[in-house]
């Protein structure tokens, strides 16, 4: 399955950047969801669950999504928007907004743990996608 990775996790970008197409998002977890939502409305299909990890959106600042290539022509894309992807990313944004915003952690040890977990769960999805 051809896909690209939409992420704000620099560890994922660093480790997978040479072998995979990365679209890096400068921003927080919600920004990744919003960017993914835009791409999905242009025809991209979500391949992993946006709320993976049981790490609540207000706790981890990192998210990496696997998306199937967007169609090139806008007209063609509009005709083939994947309703399940739209539903899942919409729910993810709602969940994100539901949780009370927390002060982002600046502890480098915790940030590194969040990055590692995010990357490992991304790889778990890639393993299925690469089969």
């Amino acid at each position, binding site marked *: 399955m051809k896909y690209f990775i939409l992420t704000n996790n620099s560890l994922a970008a660093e480790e997978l950047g040479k072998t995979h197409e990365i679209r890096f998002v400068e921003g927080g977890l919600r920004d990744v969801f919003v960017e993914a939502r835009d791409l999905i409305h242009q025809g991209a299909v*979500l*391949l*992993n*669950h946006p*709320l*993976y*990890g*049981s*790490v*609540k959106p207000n*706790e*981890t600042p990192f998210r990496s999504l*696997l998306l199937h290539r967007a169609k090139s022509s806008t007209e063609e894309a509009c005709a083939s928007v994947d309703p*399940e992807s739209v539903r*899942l990313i919409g*729910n*993810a944004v*709602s*969940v994100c907004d*539901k*949780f*009370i915003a*927390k*002060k982002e*952690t600046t*502890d480098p*040890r*915790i940030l590194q*743990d*969040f990055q*590692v*977990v995010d990357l*490992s*769960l991304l*790889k*778990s*999805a890639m393993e*299925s*996608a690469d089969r």
Partner: protein
Amino acid sequence: MRLEIGKINITDIRFAEESKIESGVLYVNPEDLKPVVLEDDKIKDVCFDIAKPGESVRITPVKDVIEPRVKVEGKGGVFPGWVSKVDTVGSGKTLALKGMALVTAGKIVGFQEGVIDMTGPGAAYTPFSKTLNLVMVCEPVEGLKQHDYEAAVRKAGFRVAAKIGELARGIEPDDTCVYETLGIKEGMEKYPDLPRVGYVSMLQTQGLLHDTYVYGVDAKKIIPTIISPTETMDGAIVSGNCVSACDKNPTYIHQNNPVIEDLFAQHGKTINFVCQIITNENVYLADKERSSNMTAKLCRMLDLDGIILTQEGFGNPDTDLIMNCKKIEAEGVKTVIVTDEYAGRDGKSQSLADADVAADAVVTGGNANEVIILPKLDKVIGTLDYINKIAGASDKTLREDGTLEVELQVITAATNEMGFGTLSAR
């Protein structure tokens, strides 16, 4: 399959020269257990402590909770695929140390482990404030990766639990319960008028640090399958995950799965408890489709009339939960969901990240976002270094007076999604 569980009631745990069980007291020499932990060169050191109900003790960060057991008759041994070979377990006789637990603690990742308070308001929320706890705090070797450390602590916990369980060999149990599942045809013939009920358990399988193992196999690689619930009681399913503490299913809860216990209690009376079906909660959407298709198909092929469906975690697993429910109901099999809720601090938000009209029978374990103040306790086993970081805490958690403002999320098994918690609307 017929399994006898012999229950040995443990009334106290004490450190002593000789490790043994005598008159219901578990005597432990930590020096006997240390080599069992340190045989893994990824663990630098370990220390043991004891926490008893009612003591002013807080255990954190908690990783897993395990009930020591030993298999004395029948095939295989406890925790198959880990400390025993992969013989099929679930028949014969197993002795269980009741009233106590082995708790593994220490930092793995700084945000996904839990809290067990042995006294105060927090104690009311965790079933493990009522057990005598032997706590094992491991220290990893320098530079060890988080997932290697998780695996090392997980496996060390099973080895130590098995070592303690061995002390029960030869002891006459205080009480014995018998659990028996029948073959499909046998069951239909014996209970022709009873509804055929199954138990579908969704295992947490999202990836490293979020995995569950069946006979040593990483459950995200399985397609849904049937097992005897008695296999689960013998430790065929073990926890390997660091998800939110309140709705994580520690190994202890798999061993003492309350859904299985309650279904067995009705088996032959109001229902025919046919089997357990295990499925997973992968992050890849096509895996979710495949697994829920398979689970629904199994329910149909087994001609089940109804099932109980349990999950582990929030968010991603909610999608599996709803997919399973929808597809199983579509096969004409009545489905009851057991879950918990993330309904916001005021309890007014939507509880699950997914929903469907087919999910019309739901049992809740409680709202994980509910806020609670935990008092300062005299002793901490483990460390409070990460208390502001764990899921359900915030930068305001540790207050100046030493009290903690947290969501129920931080408390181990507070809103357990197999119904092992104590929350009730009554």
